[in-house]
C-alpha cells in the first residue's frame, strides 16, 4: 500500500475529491439557482444537474489510470476501483436525471430532484473512496437521506410519501445497525481508519473474536437491508412501487452499487482475515436471495414490483463474487471476482435503467404498471418493444447481452473458486426467471393491445435514454473485450 501522508489543503482536496466537490458543490449551487429562478424558468435546473454530472464524469475519466492517490491521513483513497464505481454512479445518475426530466413532463415532479440526486450521488461517491469509518458512514447517510426524500418526492401521490416513510424507517434502522456494528469495530481497533483497523485486527481476532463477529454480523445485516438481500428484502417492492420511476431506477442501481462498494471496503478490508470462515454465510445469503428474488417475481402482475423482485435476484448474483473470493486460490482469482462483479454491475445498471425507462413510458400512457399494460406494445411502438426486449433478455441472461456476459463471468468466478453449486444455482434461478421476463415479452409481441390501440409516441429524450442503455447493454454483450481490458488493468486497492 503506497501510503503517502499529506496535510489537508485545498489543492489536496481538489486532487483527491475533485469530482465529489463538483457534484456536491454543484448541488448546492443548483439549489440556490432553483430558488432564485422564476417559476417558468426552472425547467433548466435539471439540465444544469446534467451538465454538472458530465463535468464530474470527465474529471474522473481524465484522471483515470493515474495510480493510487491516498490523502488526508489515509482517510480517502482514489484508485481505479473507486473511479470505476464513481463512473458507474455518475453514468447512472446522468440517465436517471434525464429520465426524471421525461417523467416530469407528465407528473410535474418538483425540481428538487435535480440537486437531491446530486447529493445522493455525492454521498455514494464518498462511500467508494472513503476508508475511514466516519467518512463511510457520512457518505452512506448522505446517500440514504437524500433518497428518502427522493422516494417521497411525488407529493400528489400518497403512495410516494408512504414509500418514503417505509424506506426511511427501514433504512434508518439499517443505518443504526451498521453504526452500532461499526462502533464495536472502533472499540476493538481503537481507530476509525480502515487501514489501522486492519492492522489492529490481526491480533484482535484471538482476543476479541466474539465482539468482532457480532460487529461483523451487525454490519452485514445492515448492508443486507440496504441492498435488499433476502430476508431483509421485503421493503423493496413497496418502496419501488411508491417511488417515482426514475427514483426507483436510482434505488435499484446506484444505492445498491454504492452499498456494494461499502461492503467491499468493510468486509474485505477489515474482516478479510477471517474470510475463509465467513464466506459461506455470504454464499448462502446469495443463494436464498437468488431463489427468493426470482421466485417472488413469478407471480407478480405489477411490473415495477416484478422488477423489484428481479433486482433482488440480481443482487444475489452480485454478491456471489464476494462469496467466491473466500475460496479463491490466489490473488488473481480475487481480481477476477471483483472485475466480474464490476462488469455485471455496469450491465445491471444499463439494463435496469433501460427497463425502467420503457416502463415509465408505458405506465404513463396506460396509467397502469401491470404486465397487461405491455400488451401489444410491439404494435403500438416497435422501437420501445425491441429495446425492452433487449433489456429483458439481458436481465434473463441470454447471450450477446451484457447481462449474459456478466453472469457468465460470475459463473466463471464460482467455478474458479471450486464452488460449482453456486454457479448451478445462478443459472437454475435465471432459468426460472425466463418465466416472468418472457411473460412481458409475450405481452409485447404476442398479445393484442387491450383497449387503446393508438401508437405510443415516445419523445426524443426517452429514445435517447433507452437507445443508449440498449446500446451499452449490447456493447457489453457483443464486444466485452475492451471493457474487460480496462477492468483487468485497474489497480485495486481493497
Amino acid at each position, binding site marked *: 500500500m503506497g501510503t503517502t501522508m499529506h496535510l489537508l489543503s485545498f489543492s489536496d482536496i481538489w486532487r483527491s475529491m475533485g469530482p465529489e466537490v463538483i457534484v456536491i458543490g454543484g448541488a448546492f449551487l443548483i439549489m440556490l439557482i432553483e430558488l432564485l429562478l422564476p417559476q417558468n424558468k426552472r425547467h433548466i435546473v435539471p439540465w444544469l444537474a446534467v451538465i454538472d454530472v458530465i463535468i464530474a464524469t470527465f474529471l474522473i475519466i481524465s484522471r483515470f489510470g493515474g495510480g493510487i492517490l491516498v490523502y488526508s491521513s489515509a482517510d480517502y483513497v482514489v484508485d481505479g476501483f473507486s473511479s470505476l464505481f464513481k463512473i458507474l454512479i455518475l453514468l447512472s445518475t446522468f440517465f436517471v436525471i434525464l429520465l426524471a426530466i421525461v417523467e416530469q413532463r407528465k407528473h410535474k415532479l418538483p425540481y428538487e430532484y435535480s440537486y437531491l440526486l446530486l447529493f445522493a450521488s455525492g454521498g455514494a461517491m464518498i462511500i467508494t473512496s472513503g476508508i475511514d469509518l466516519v467518512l463511510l458512514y457520512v457518505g452512506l447517510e448522505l446517500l440514504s437521506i437524500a433518497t428518502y426524500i427522493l422516494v417521497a418526492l411525488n407529493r400528489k401521490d400518497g403512495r410516494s410519501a408512504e414509500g418514503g416513510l417505509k424506506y426511511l424507517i427501514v433504512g434508518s434502522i439499517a443505518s443504526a445497525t451498521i453504526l452500532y456494528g461499526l462502533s464495536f469495530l472502533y472499540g476493538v481497533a481503537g481507530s476509525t481508519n480502515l487501514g489501522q483497523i486492519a492492522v489492529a485486527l490481526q491480533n484482535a481476532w484471538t482476543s476479541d473474536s466474539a465482539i468482532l463477529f457480532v460487529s461483523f454480523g451487525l454490519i452485514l445485516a445492515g448492508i443486507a437491508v440496504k441492498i435488499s438481500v433476502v430476508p431483509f428484502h421485503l421493503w423493496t417492492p413497496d418502496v419501488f412501487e411508491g417511488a417515482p420511476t426514475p427514483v426507483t431506477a436510482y434505488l435499484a442501481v446506484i444505492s445498491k452499487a454504492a452499498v456494494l462498494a461499502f461492503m467491499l471496503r468493510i468486509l474485505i478490508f477489515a474482516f478479510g482475515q477471517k474470510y475463509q470462515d465467513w464466506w459461506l454465510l455470504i454464499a448462502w445469503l446469495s443463494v436464498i436471495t437468488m431463489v427468493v428474488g426470482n421466485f417472488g417475481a413469478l407471480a407478480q402482475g405489477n411490473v415495477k414490483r416484478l422488477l423489484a423482485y428481479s433486482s433482488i435476484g440480481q443482487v444475489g448474483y452480485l454478491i456471489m463474487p464476494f462469496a467466491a473470493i473466500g475460496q479463491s*486460490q*490466489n490473488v*488473481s*482469482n480475487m*481480481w*477476477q471476482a471483483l472485475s466480474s462483479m464490476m462488469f455485471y454491475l455496469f450491465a445491471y445498471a444499463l439494463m435496469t435503467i433501460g427497463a425502467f425507462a420503457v416502463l415509465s413510458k408505458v405506465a404513463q400512457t396506460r396509467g397502469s404498471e401491470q404486465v397487461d399494460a405491455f400488451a401489444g406494445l410491439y404494435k403500438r411502438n416497435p422501437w420501445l418493444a425491441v429495446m425492452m426486449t433487449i433489456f429483458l*433478455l439481458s436481465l434473463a441472461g*441470454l*447471450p*450477446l447481452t451484457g447481462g449474459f456476459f456478466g453472469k457468465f*463471468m460470475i*459463473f*466463471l468466478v464460482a*467455478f*474458479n473458486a471450486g464452488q*460449482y453449486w453456486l*454457479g*448451478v444455482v445462478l*443459472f*437454475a434461478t*435465471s*432459468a*426460472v426467471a*425466463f*418465466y416472468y421476463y*418472457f411473460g412481458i*415479452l*409475450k405481452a409485447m*409481441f*404476442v398479445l393484442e393491445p387491450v383497449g387503446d390501440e393508438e401508437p405510443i409516441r415516445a419523445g426524443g429524450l426517452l429514445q435517447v435514454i433507452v437507445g443508449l442503455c440498449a446500446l451499452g447493454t449490447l456493447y457489453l454483450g457483443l*464486444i*466485452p*473485450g475492451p471493457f*474487460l481490458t480496462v477492468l*483487468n488493468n485497474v489497480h485495486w486497492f481493497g
Partner: protein
Amino acid sequence: MEDVLLLIVVIPLIAGLFVLAMPARSHGVIRAIGLIGALIPACFALAAYLAFDQRQINLQFPFTTTWMSIANAYNSLTLHINLGFGVDGISMPLVMLVGVVSTLTMIRSFKVTERVKSHYFWLLFLTMGMYGVFAASGIFTFFFFLESTLVAGYLLINIWGGEKRHYAATKFLIYRGLASVVLLAGLIGLAYVYASTAQAASNSVFIPNAPNFLTFSISQLLTEAQLIHIPAASQDVLFLVFLLAVLMEEAFVPFHTWLPDTHEQSDTGTNMMIGGALMKIGLYVMLRFAVSMLPLGLAHYATWLAVLGLVSILYGAIVAIASKDWRRLIAFSSISHMGLVLLAIGSMQEIGIQGAVFMLVSSGLLTALLFFTVGAQADRTGTYKIENLGGLSKSLPVISGVMLVAALGSVGLPGLSGFISEFSLFVGGFAAFPTLSALASLSMILAAFYLLWAMQRTTFGPANQALPDMVDADVIEYVPMVILVALVVLLGVFPGVLGDVVHGTAQAIAARIGG
C-alpha cells in the same frame, strides 16, 4: 469456401432484417424474401456438403474470428474466446438438414396469413439459430445460437399456435431454458477440466495450439480429447450434467411432456422446424460433447444410456398408440425414435454413432413430412383429431399417399431413409446390449401398429360425412412433399450419400471411445 458457414448463418438474419424493413401488408414480397433467405443458405450448405472432404476428421470450412479474452479466468490462465464455425461429418449432415427443412418450411408458410411479417422474421431467426448451433466451432457461438432458437421457438409457438399455445410455449421455454443452462454449466466445466488436465499433462504430451490451455474452441477440445484423458471422476460428473441437459433438450422420458404439448399447439411450419431440425440439437450435443469428449464418462454410464433409451423407446411407442391427436402421435413417435439413438450411443459402437446421425437426419425429414401432410389435412378438415377424420384417401389421394410414405418411412421400411437408420442403430445396440435391444425391437412392431392404425382410421375406410368438400394438394404443397419424399427415397436407396460424409468422423469418435 472459407466463409461459407458464416454466410450460411448470416444470410437468414440479413433476410430477416429485410423482412422487418418491408411494410407489413406486402405479404408477397415478405414471403419471397423469406424463401430466398432460406434457399440461398441451403444452396451454400449443399455446396459445402458436396465439397466436404470425408477423409479429414477436423472441422472443415473453418471460420474463426477472435472475440475477446478474460484474464485470470482460470487460476492465472487467460480465456480467449473466439467466434467461429466449422463442421465435421456429424454436423455437416445436420446443417444440410436445416437447409432443407427451413426452405420447405418457408414454402409451407406461404399459407400463413396472420402477422406474416413477424412470422417470417422469426422463422428466419430460428433458421439462423439452428444453422449456428450445428455449425458452431466454439462453445460460446454454440450457446448463443442455442438460446436464439429458444426465443424464436417461444414466440413462434406463442403467436401462431393453437388454443393452449401460451401454456405450451411456456413449457417449451422453461424446459429448454433449464436444459440450456445445465448445458452451459456442463460446457464451461468441460473446458475447465480440460484446461487443468492439459496444463498438468503439458510436460509429457505435446498439445498443439495450446499455449494457454484454457480454450472454448470445440475443435481444440476435440483435438485434446484425442491426446489426453481428463480424470474419470470429472468425466462422470460432467457426463451426468450433459445427460441431464440432453434428456430435457431432446424430450426423453420422463422429461418429455413438453414435446407433445408443443407439437400439439404449434402451427404446421413451426412444427416442421421444431420436429425437423430443432429436436436434433439434444442428441447432437450428446455426440459432439458428451460422447466425443468424455469417453470414460460414456463408458461408465453406457448402460444407463441404454436403459433410458429403452424406456423412451417403449414409452413413446405405447403412448403413441393411445394418442388421439395426430401431432401428439408424431411427437411420441419421435420420442420413441430418439430413444433408439440413445440406446445406440450407449452401445459405443461405430455403427451406432453412424446410425445416430442417420436417424437424426432421417427422422428430421420424416417428421417434417409427417407434420406437413398432417397439417395439410388439417388445413382442409379443420381437425387433427384422429377420430374425426376418415377416408381421406378418397378426396385427398396425393396428400394421403405422401403421408403413407412418411408413415412407412417412420416404421422403418427399407428403400426409405428410416430403415438404414434403424438398422445401424440396432446393429450397434445388439452388439452391446442384446437383451435391451431385443426389447427395443418391440418398438418396430408397435410403430407399425400405431402409425398404420392411425393411417387406417384417417385415410382409409369410408369418408367421414362430417368432413367438408376438399381439394387435393396445390402446387405450393407439391414442392415440399416432392422434395422430402425424394430425399427420403434417396437416403433409403443410396445411403452412401450420407454415409460417406459421416463415416470418417464416426470412425474417429469410435476410436476415441474405444468402440
